[in-house]
């Protein structure tokens, strides 16, 4: 019996077709896994089901009745979502969180004792052992996750969606979760399980659907398939072919990062393997792949803001470089274009001109006084050079499109003659046309001798314009790949499969 069905579910964002014609069915009492690369449309799909976004077109049926949720609150009575971000009030106890919004009351007074009994009964039903009376903030993150699952179950939804539930859990806690999912399934609850870990799919799911570029590729019985086949399906055929890359001959080595974890190193030596070093040359675009949370951005940020962990040593132009703060990095000709444009890349209360000049004022001034002439001419130059679409340099940067904001964010370094440019997700939320403009800018910088550190969640663009790709997994570099890229192996490394073998691939 069907518990949920979608027909032709489509979501169009400005400039991006996030989800296209997805037909999906969830049987009663089934665990249905959804897998796909970053940006394949998994989270858009979940958000539509959870009532966060309305669908552009398509229908959703719940027990064969068409439904339309206008808010997450409305959806939550039918579909419970276990998010990665937990929705708990930290200083409330487990009991208080469990009953939040539906407390048991008598004449406006809380029936604390009754609530406690009911909460503990409910918990025992699922075989969990949580201290329900302590403030949630004092529980481990795994315990908190369990509690937030319990809270969702408490509202007895027809369907539960788990969105990457094992990310914050220890192995032992994950086992408890798997057991819990097994129990739920036996009790007839239908479950959608989103994950990057194919092991979990094989272990838990009855069926698996693969999303790619916003479309559903296929749905299979897990018993009829294997990890290898699933990975193949996740990779788009045209990967790395939509942008014509210009090649430069990499020049001298610029940045060299060596990882030495005394314990791991000895272990690695025993097994005759090693963690690859990171090495960026002048005129080279070096891609960094990895899932969200794999430590890609953190490593790059540590180089800029310092301090670095003492398990790695950084060499810049052959000399030891100890990251201290952004000012120091900039002095050493390293600049970063952060992922969070509005939060870290721009000052949204400033106009375009101020944003393009505030980081370089010491060069645009005389004895501490701003030189408006220098500032104006420089801004005009950058606006023209990067074809930033503004009607005046005095336009507020908040009113620009994402692509133009990104150009302003990177334009502020354009006279800095930086040697190493760190781009963290530079094309996120940007239309296709501006994306290729950003690639061209990166290539231009490389052609002028810069080294480019290019972090992206979009494997396709990494394959398209990188000269070399490092893959990170759980805060470690697990693979180095050179052209011609083997997208299958890269994806495997990203998903943490055979992490150590992929390091061998290069040697």
């Amino acid at each position: 019996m069907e518990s949920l069905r979608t027909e032709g579910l489509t979501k169009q964002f400005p400039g991006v077709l996030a989800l296209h014609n997805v037909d999906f069915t969830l049987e009663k009492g089934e665990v249905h896994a959804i897998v796909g690369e970053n940006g394949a449309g998994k989270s858009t799909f979940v958000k539509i089901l959870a009532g966060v976004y309305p669908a552009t077109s398509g229908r959703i049926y719940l027990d064969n009745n068409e439904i339309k949720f206008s808010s997450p609150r409305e959806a939550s009575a039918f579909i419970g979502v276990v998010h990665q971000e937990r929705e708990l009030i930290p200083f409330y106890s487990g009991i208080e969180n469990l009953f939040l919004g539906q407390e048991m009351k008598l004449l406006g007074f809380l029936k604390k004792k009754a609530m406690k009994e009911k909460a503990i009964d409910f918990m025992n039903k699922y075989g969990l052992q949580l201290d329900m009376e302590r403030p949630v903030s004092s529980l481990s993150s795994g315990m908190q996750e369990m509690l937030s699952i319990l809270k969702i179950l408490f509202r007895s939804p027809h369907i539960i969606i788990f969105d990457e539930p094992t990310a914050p859990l220890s192995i032992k806690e994950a086992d408890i979760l798997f057991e819990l999912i097994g129990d739920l399934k036996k009790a007839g609850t239908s479950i959608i399980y989103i994950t990057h870990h194919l092991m979990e799919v094989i272990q838990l799911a009855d069926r698996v659907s693969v999303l790619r570029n916003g479309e559903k590729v296929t749905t299979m019985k897990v018993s009829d398939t294997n990890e290898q086949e699933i990975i193949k399906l996740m990779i788009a055929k045209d990967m790395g072919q939509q942008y014509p890359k210009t090649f430069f001959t990499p020049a001298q080595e610029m940045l060299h990062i060596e990882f030495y974890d005394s314990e791991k190193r000895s272990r690695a030596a025993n097994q005759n393997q090693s963690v690859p070093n990171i090495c960026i040359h002048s005129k080279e675009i070096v891609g960094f792949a990895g899932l969200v949370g794999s430590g890609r951005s953190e490593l790059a940020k540590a180089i800029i803001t310092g301090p670095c962990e003492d398990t790695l040593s950084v060499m810049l132009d052959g000399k030891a470089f100890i990251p201290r703060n952004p000012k120091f990095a900039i002095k050493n000709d390293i600049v970063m274009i952060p992922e969070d444009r509005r939060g870290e890349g721009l000052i949204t209360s400033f106009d375009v001109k101020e944003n393009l000049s505030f980081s370089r004022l010491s060069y645009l001034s005389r004895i501490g006084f701003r030189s408006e002439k220098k500032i104006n001419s420089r801004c005009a130059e950058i606006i023209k050079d990067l074809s930033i679409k503004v009607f005046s340099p005095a336009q507020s940067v908040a009113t620009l499109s994402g692509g133009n904001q990104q150009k302003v964010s990177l334009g502020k370094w354009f006279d800095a003659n930086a040697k190493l440019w760190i781009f963290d997700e530079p094309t996120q939320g940007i239309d296709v046309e501006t994306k290729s403009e950003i690639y061209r800018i990166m290539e231009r910088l490389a052609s002028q001798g810069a080294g480019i550190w290019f972090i992206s969640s979009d494997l396709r663009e990494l394959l398209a314009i990188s000269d070399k790709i490092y893959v990170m997994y759980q805060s470690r570099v697990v693979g180095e790949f050179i052209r011609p890229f083997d997208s299958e192996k890269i994806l495997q490394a990203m998903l943490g499969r055979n992490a150590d073998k992929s390091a061998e691939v290069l040697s």
Partner: protein
Amino acid sequence: MNINKFFTQFGTVIALTLLFLVFAIAVPGFIESNNLINILTQIALLMIIAQGFTMVLIVNELDLSFANLASLSSVLVAGFIIHGMNPALAIFFVLLAGLAFGAMNGILVTKVGIPSLITTLATGIVANGFIYMYTKGVSFYSGLPKAFLYLGRGRIGAIPVLVIIMLLDLAVFHIFVNRTVAGSNLKATGGNSNAAFIAGINVKFYKVLGLVICSFSAALTGILLTARLGAANPEGGGGFLMEGFAIVLLGQTVYTVGRASPIGTFVGALIIGVLNNGLTLMGAQYFTQDIVKGLIIILAVVISSIQSKRMGV
């Protein structure tokens, strides 16, 4: 420029002009040059202390200690001079103490990481304690030399020295904020400290700088207050806190909504000064003045927040 934008940028200035015209027509004697100079003299101290507080708002912090610090500076400079210290030296030491006080606020906020609201609430209370420790609750009345009192009571031609100091102060702050690199860095720090940090600006330094300038201005104001009154009492600067906040908030509605600026603060001070003066001349009682001032502040902030929402700022 469309009308909407015009009102957003100049609405507060227009309000000031209207207020001025109403009093000029309705109140005999308001428009006389003596009275106008009077208004400027009345707002001089408030404006000087509020300029310092403006810097704190620009770096997106708060300061609740400046009024108490002004009182402390006022009694210290009086006490030092009365006990025989050279007035110039006394002024120097008190200004130095102001700098140190601001640096302490700044270090507690940036290095220790206590929110500025709490830090300055506490240091303001400490300053208050020092006032009573030093004065035993008694005011200083006599023994201040003429040369010192000249700062607060003297005139150059028809213009009071205090007004000249205020205008100089305004000019220095305006140029500092709008024409210097340090001023731009202050604004960047307050605008988005994460972005400023990643772009290589030492945001902690500029937060400290904002707080230091505020404390320095408070010390200066305390000194001038003593020179103006010819006396110092433990509660002398107490009124600056509320009125200082009020005029800087009013000032935030000038030109760019939501952003403090020296000119804005000056306009805010003028509005409060014109109101106080006009209402007094009309014979309104002091409590009426407070009610009117409070309502006007609410009105100004409501209008500008509606405008800024409409503009999507």
